[in-house]
């Protein structure tokens, strides 16, 4: 008697809805948010789904700052937590992102980018929050920023975001754009076992031995949920291994360096990219989000026209996947970086390039998509 293992549930979902599927598959049981276009479907979907999840909590807060506070609280109490927003809300969340980084509180923040500064173009795509995702919060802090190009990848990257957040005790930002979020595609719904699911390490030592911000082999100290018998102090102030405020130079340095090192040491695990025909490429397109889909077609058309073109899709934007980008810049005569902004990620490419090859940017900020032909024109 055999049951076909591959009888999968399929659905026709928006990118936003796929993010929810990924989050729930990863074990998210806590969502707090404030509605904002074009991320709202994530919240609406969570409002319907979470009450059915064991111990699931959904709460609509009064603003984005409150949403971040609530998920930080939820995470400290041991939950896998998420919120979603768009540009203006993302700006409001920045202080709390820094707090989460400083207190090493795992959380996932989805930012569905829209066009323009300020209220901008609420229902049009943009990729203008890339630098804000990296540098928005004040002070020195490491951060992980991921992106997705299509609906199935929304599931995958949502799971990855949770895994990274839990593994490295850090906030993880998933940057989508309005097109990815609002495109409807057929996907296979995630089944248990499809993805490796990571949960944060909890302490096993007696409570009196536990130091919440201690240096460990991995640099990531275990984290018990509040109320489990490990009483400790959490503060946004620079703190010692016990969690109490300190301004002693050696303790300040040790904390900051460990927080950077716990990400730096795992670049190989964190920096995710997809190589498309880059092995013999003389021209490479470096793209992310919806633009990568246009680039994929452009590269195929270029190949058909006899140009040895390749595509590097960045799934991780920060820490910037230098180890993938740099060799390509050394081996190609031209790198093209198309983006729906004035050049936020091409800055990184140029920084890594150091004059080795020609970097050409394609920037579009009118709320319209970058088309395959627009990219093809630059590479052919």
């Amino acid at each position, binding site marked *: 008697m055999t049951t076909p293992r591959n009888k999968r549930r399929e659905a026709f979902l928006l990118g936003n809805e796929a993010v929810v599927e990924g989050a729930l598959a990863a074990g998210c049981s806590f969502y707090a948010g404030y509605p904002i276009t074009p991320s709202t479907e994530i919240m609406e979907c969570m409002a319907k789904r979470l009450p059915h999840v064991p111990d*699931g909590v959904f709460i609509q807060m009064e603003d984005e*700052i409150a*949403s971040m506070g609530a998920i930080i*609280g939820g995470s400290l109490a041991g939950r896998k937590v998420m919120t979603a927003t768009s540009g203006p809300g993302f700006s409001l969340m920045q202080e709390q992102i820094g*707090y989460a980084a400083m207190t090493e509180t795992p959380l996932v923040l989805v930012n569905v980018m829209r066009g323009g500064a300020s209220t901008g173009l609420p229902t049009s795509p943009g990729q203008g929050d890339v630098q804000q995702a990296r540098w928005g919060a004040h002070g020195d802090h490491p951060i992980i920023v991921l992106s997705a190009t299509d609906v199935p990848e929304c599931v995958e990257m949502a799971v990855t975001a949770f895994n990274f957040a839990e593994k490295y005790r850090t906030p993880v930002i998933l940057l989508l754009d309005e097109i990815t979020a609002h495109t409807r595609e057929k996907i296979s719904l995630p089944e248990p076992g499809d993805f490796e699911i990571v949960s944060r390490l909890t302490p096993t030592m007696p409570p009196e031995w536990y130091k919440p911000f201690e240096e460990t082999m991995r640099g990531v100290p275990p984290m018990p949920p509040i109320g489990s018998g490990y009483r400790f102090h*959490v503060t946004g102030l620079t703190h010692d291994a016990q969690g109490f405020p300190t301004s002693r130079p050696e303790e300040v340095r040790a904390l900051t360096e460990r927080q950077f090192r716990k990400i730096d040491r795992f670049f190989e695990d964190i920096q995710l990219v997809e190589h498309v025909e880059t092995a013999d490429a003389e021209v490479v397109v470096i793209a992310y989000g919806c633009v990568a889909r246009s680039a994929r077609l452009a590269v195929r058309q270029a190949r058909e026209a006899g140009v040895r073109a390749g595509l590097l899709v960045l799934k991780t934007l920060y820490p910037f996947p230098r180890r993938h980008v740099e060799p390509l810049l050394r081996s190609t005569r031209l790198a093209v970086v198309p983006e729906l902004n004035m050049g936020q990620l091409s800055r990184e490419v140029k920084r890594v390039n150091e004059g080795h090859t020609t970097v050409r940017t394609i920037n579009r900020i009118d709320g319209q998509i970058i088309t395959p032909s627009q990219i093809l024109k630059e590479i052919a």
Partner: protein
Amino acid sequence: MAEITQLIHHYLRHNKKFPLVFCPGCGHGIVLGSLVRSVHALGLAKDNVVIVAGIGCSGRIAAYVDFNTVHTTHGRALTVATGIKMANPKLTVIAVMGDGDAFSIGGNHLIHAARRNIGVTALVLNNFIYGMTGGQCSSTTPEGAYSHTSPMGQLESAFDIVELTRAAGAAGVSRGTVFHVKELDALLTDALTRPGFNLVEALTPCFTQYGRGNGFKSAVEMFRWLKNSCLPLERYAKLEDPGGKIPIGSFVRRDVPGLETRYAAMCQGLRAKKGGAA
């Protein structure tokens, strides 16, 4: 005496360097004592108590007590407290905030916490001033009072914390002072046992930043002022001319379940409807 010493060692953190950061004459240490006495009187396990504090002098209280303690960003203590309570309703969550914390930068969070009636106890230490930042006016600085940002006297009127919180829909609202310590203990103990959002305003003097600039000669004089101007609600109600007197006591006591309870009930209802197959 030995018993008191034992209690101090039980509830305060050994590895935290004393003395407290508070200035001489400050009332915050008294509120801290009141907090610890209330938790002790109720027999709450230290593991189940969470102190969530904001920024400023009052925010530092969190570091001294041996509970689960979270020192959050300025004004956001209630948002983090809400998250903790929703994630684990079994915990006793206390948000310790200053007047600036709770009613200026965090004013929106406070009225919404009261409206949604989250099961958190808000302990507001009202000293009418931004103490740690160096004596600027807050949204509770009385009209006419001097501060570094109202050097000609405050022109704006002050929030009445009790009235504002009552209007926003809190389940419990009370006001005490650090002079009337026994009463403050009782108010806090009561708030900790009641469902929903309960706010306790503790009037506490800041001689360093507020008192000196407003005609008080000493911290003792500020305590004397608290003694003379605050009177129980029942007696206040009988006054023909309140004349600047401040009522203290319990103003609102509504027995309504907290949001976490209502949410759990909704989820349970959903599961029952699905026959437990959710």
